[in-house]
């Protein structure tokens, strides 16, 4: 097990290096930091001094190695736009995005999986047909449109929920949470639904398809032939066998939720990393963009590792290759 985790971590290193290279390349090829920093009036000597100070006269690989070294220490330099350390900016914004993303993922899982099981078991019922139609809407409508529609209905017409922002937050250490205030929770509802809806319908359709597949298998028929209770057959034997593909997709989707919260955060003016990124793109704030890119890559790499570990927990056949030797007896 330890060897497996270690080998996966080693595999992640080149991935992260490639992403770091792309991030780094932005500095070199998108805009010219020196002219941005110097402003309008400067002498050639000032320019050369700054280039030397920034180490831009060094060979490419030396510069890249320094960038990676700093990144590992969480050092991404100053934001051009806000003149504050990038790491600080991101740390400030991360709680908002992570809370939004986890709520969206929770909605997607805890509503999507039961709906998928239901539509798989009762294919003919009118409720299943309704869910399927509804899921088509969820899959095909773009996120920003769903967000705007929700704002129109629940904020403008009904006035139940706020249309933007995060409400009041409570600071716990360096983490600002919206979970502890009424307005924080209310503000979370619409963006979380908007962000989770697509994933919800995707997970529902996936679980349904997998359930239909699994329910046809001999071992389910045999479980019924042994007189096991329906609940145990459907939710134990059948659902557990659908989990491997569902975990894969749900894991990747959680990554996407974090990475592509950008649209939802923009629609709801949610003060998270996505909004920060969009604002940074507008201002060509390369240090922030580079750091965000690296962070998202790290999120995906971590999620992939967790997904692989979950496979092992769910499916004993994957443990088989090492099982023979590990068993010992």
């Amino acid at each position, binding site marked *: 097990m330890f060897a497996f985790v270690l080998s996966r971590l080693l595999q992640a290193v080149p991935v992260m290096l490639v992403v770091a290279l792309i991030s780094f390349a932005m500095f070199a090829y998108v805009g010219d930091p020196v002219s941005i920093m110097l402003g309008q009036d400067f002498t050639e000597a000032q320019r050369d001094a700054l280039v030397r100070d920034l180490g831009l006269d060094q060979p490419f690989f030396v510069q890249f190695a320094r960038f990676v070294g700093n990144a590992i220490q969480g050092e991404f330099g100053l934001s051009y736009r806000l003149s504050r350390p990038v790491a600080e900016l991101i740390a400030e914004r991360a709680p908002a995005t992570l809370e939004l993303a986890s709520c969206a993922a929770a909605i997607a899982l805890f509503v999507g999986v039961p709906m998928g099981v239901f539509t798989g078991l009762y294919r003919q019922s009118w409720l299943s047909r309704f869910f399927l139609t509804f899921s088509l809407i969820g899959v095909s409508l773009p996120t920003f449109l769903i967000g705007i529609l929700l704002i129109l209905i629940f904020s403008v017409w009904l006035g139940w929920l706020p249309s933007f922002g995060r409400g009041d937050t409570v600071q716990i250490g360096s983490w600002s949470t919206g979970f502890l205030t009424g307005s924080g929770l209310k503000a979370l509802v619409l963006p979380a639904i908007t962000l989770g809806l697509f994933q919800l319908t995707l997970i529902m359709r996936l679980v349904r398809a997998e359930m239909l597949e699994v329910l046809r298998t001999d071992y389910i028929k045999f479980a019924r032939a*042994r007189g096991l209770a329906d609940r145990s057959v459907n939710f134990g034997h059948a659902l*557990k*066998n659908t989990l491997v593909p569902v975990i894969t997709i749900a894991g990747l989707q959680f990554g996407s939720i974090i990475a592509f919260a950008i649209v939802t955060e923009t629609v709801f003016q949610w003060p998270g990393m996505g909004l920060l990124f969009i604002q940074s793109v507008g201002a060509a704030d390369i240090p922030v963009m580079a750091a965000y890119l690296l962070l998202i890559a790290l999120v995906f790499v971590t999620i992939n590792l967790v997904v692989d570990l979950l496979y092992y927990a769910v499916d004993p056949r994957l443990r088989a290759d090492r099982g023979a030797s590990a068993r010992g007896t």
Partner: protein
Amino acid sequence: MTAAPPLLEVRNLRVEFPSRRGTLVALHDVSFSIAPGEILGVVGESGAGKSMTGAAIIRLLEPPGRIAGGQILLEGRRIDNLSQDEMRRIRGRRIGAIFQDPLTTLNPLYTVGRQLTETMQTHLDLSGSEARARAIGWLEMVGIPAAAQRIDSYPHEFSGGMRQRVVIALALCAEPRLVVADEPTTALDVSIQAQVIALLKRLAREKNTSMMLVTHDMGVIAETADRVAVMYAGRVVEIGPVREVVKHPHHPYSIGLMNSIPPLDHRVERLAQIDGAMPRLNAVPPGCPYNPRCPKVFDRCIVERPDLLDAGSTRAACWLYDPAEPPHV
């Protein structure tokens, strides 16, 4: 035959598959009985309705198949009209089932021990540790070496033959009075087949369990069954003691079937075969369904369908054995 009341009695069973182009009748007027402790072999070509008869008895017909007529009685009580939940309590507890392919019959994500204890605890009032002790006992009984260690193994850690032994233990562990074994050896290596059949036969004798043994392997039938039913196109065409049906079959189809078993004691130039193929469900001819292939067909066979008639040592659905019929040559 014994005078004891039958354990299982099937009377005029009719199974239909409604389809867009009319109703297909898969089983016609199937009647037979199984005495306590008796092994009834059921033989016939693929598609003759052997497996479907077994599935109808445990009420696990593939939808949209349904029992459209007739009765099934277990120990004198009708079970074909029970509710799904009552039927669930009969499956496993009163009627066990063994399926064809042991590689797909066991749930890959649960240990064999868990599958055994789950089955026993569903039907019998057992504590966890009692169930586990019994599970080990069953694994020993079906010949799994080192059962106490193997109980926590997953199905993929067993060979095909061993898995079929586990399936047998699962079918018998709640001590049913009847076991429906659907081609229990077809998917196994020939060398393993004999072992598994011997095991089934021994356990059935020891536990005084009756068995309906569905197979197309005449060797298995001759070795194992007390009586045998020959099925053709959804009907029982001959039924009688195994020695008689194998050595002196009466129905022309049974005769053809027995002749097509290659002899071991001398070489033949050409294996005997029955010309033609069994009719599809939607193209069963009027009269006797075997009439297009029957070497002894005469006028009456083409218009009128025979029921099972006394043919001396067996009963055969053939007009040749109607006492009112003049002798045909």
